[in-house]
């Protein structure tokens, strides 16, 4: 579904990605692992159009999408839940969610999706008129994921959904991520610090180091691979 081929990207003079290639087959969860600064988030930023790659191609269903503006890419129903959640802090939960459906015109569909998001995250339904900045970290993460779901994505890019959350909340969120994948047939590209957790839901894994792919294997193999675990994943 998504093919990333040999992309390079830089922030000003600093090259963050040297040569990244990865592919995400339809209907699966693929995870990208690596240490801080390995280029995981940058890869997602390139895919979602926030950063223009200096070389390489990104193909979505065979069509090139690299270098296109971010709002165009969202309209191809690729949704990015960014690092640090980036919710609209002074807007209400409901306004945040309706912004997620900005690209859509079908009112009944939006209404149904809103209901489904509330089914996934009942906490959000309770706080629908509350200002988003007052939510707890876990609720904000739920809101960020829910907001992305409102666009009815075909490919969901998740950037560290567990960052800064309590273990119980993380478990809930990962349960929902799996549900989204299995029931809604949403393909997911997941970035995680917690490699063990990520590999437990993913079917395939990539390990990045300093802007390059160093290992790519099915998730089960990766979890068993002693050397990779010791040298890159650290558990």
């Amino acid at each position, binding site marked *: 579904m998504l093919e990333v081929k040999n992309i390079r990207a830089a922030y000003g003079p600093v090259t963050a990605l040297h040569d990244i290639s990865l592919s995400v087959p339809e209907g699966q969860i693929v995870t990208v692992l690596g240490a801080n600064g390995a280029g995981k988030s940058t890869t997602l930023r390139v895919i*979602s*159009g*926030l950063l223009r790659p200096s070389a390489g191609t990104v193909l979505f269903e065979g069509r090139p999408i690299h270098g296109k*503006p*971010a*709002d165009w890419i*969202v*309209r191809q129903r690729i*949704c*990015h839940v*960014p690092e640090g959640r*980036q*919710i*609209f*802090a*002074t*807007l209400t939960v409901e*306004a945040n969610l*309706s*912004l*997620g459906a*900005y*690209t859509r015109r079908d009112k009944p569909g939006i209404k149904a999706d809103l209901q489904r998001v509330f089914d996934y995250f009942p906490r959000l339904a309770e706080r629908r008129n509350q200002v988003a900045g007052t939510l707890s970290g876990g609720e904000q993460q739920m809101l960020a994921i829910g*907001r*992305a779901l409102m*666009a009815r994505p075909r490919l969901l890019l998740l950037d560290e959904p567990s960052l800064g959350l309590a273990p119980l909340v993380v478990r809930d969120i990962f349960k929902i991520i799996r549900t989204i994948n299995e029931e809604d047939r949403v393909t997911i590209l997941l970035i995680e610090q917690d490699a063990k957790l990520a590999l437990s839901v993913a079917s395939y894994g990539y390990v990045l180091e300093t802007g390059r792919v160093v290992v790519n294997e099915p998730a089960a193999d990766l979890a068993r691979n002693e050397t990779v675990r010791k040298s890159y994943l650290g558990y």
Partner: protein
Amino acid sequence: METFFDQLAIGASTGALYALLALALVFIFRATDIVNFAQGEMAMFNTYIGWSISRPLSFSWIPFLSIERHINILNWHPEVFGIPLFLGSESDGSTRLGYLLIVIGTVAIAFVMGGLIERLIIRPSEGKNLLNAVIVTLGIFAIVNSIANWRYGPVPQNYPAPFKGNAVDFGLFKLGQHSLFALIVGVAMMFAIYVFFQRTKLGLAVRAAALNPQASELMGINTGQMLTLGWSLAAAIGCLAGMLVAPSVAGISPNLMLGVLLYAFAAAVLGGLDSALGAVVGGLAVGIGQTMVVQYIGSEWSDIVAFGLIIGILMVKPTGIFGSPVVKKV
């Protein structure tokens, strides 16, 4: 006591105009963090455009577009809500655009101009030092002011107003027809703005783009377009304010909006630069305060009180009354 209520009403009417311009300032500030010092001058120039299209039409040099002749031949008198679109003058046989058409045309031009200014001048200076952007708006100020001086001259010109009749007596107070009109239009505009930002998807998107541009892009919002839209709207609102101010002072001149802009700044700061509600409340407060000071203390004190008030308010509440506190991050 009667004068008091009269002054109150006049103050509210002036205040509504200040509030409109202050709202324009607030839009731009919220969308781009820029304090737009050129807001008043943009409004002044657009008001001049309204003035030039309000003069007798003469399209005789365009052979096929002789509107004048067509109107006269067909004896065509289109009306919208009872307001004629074209006005004929028996004395010299000339035809003018009716007030409604002037307003629509001018606001449309202002809308386009605001967007163009954002695209061509503000966009290249964005993302650098905040001070740079402010200096750029000062540059726009200087350019627009001097072009208006060059093109239209410093002499005030008469400006069309739809209602020029006697004051309307409300019992408690009397209010001139134009002031009443300005008050009504001002309040209606504020309501329209409220509806746009609170009740429409596009308004929500503009707000989101101002709050967090990157996240907005991930929602599929074209943030660049939203910024342009913000500037366009601000220019249109400012232009409307200018068209209401011009008839109530001596007429239109290149310095028309200078004083108004300063009071609008006072209003915006009073309410908090990032608060639309604050702009409205601040505008009314400054307008009423100004007329009261002129009435009961002396006209030379009105500016001093207004600007003293800005400083005083900021000393007590550094981000205005309704402004959200500035959060400093490492």
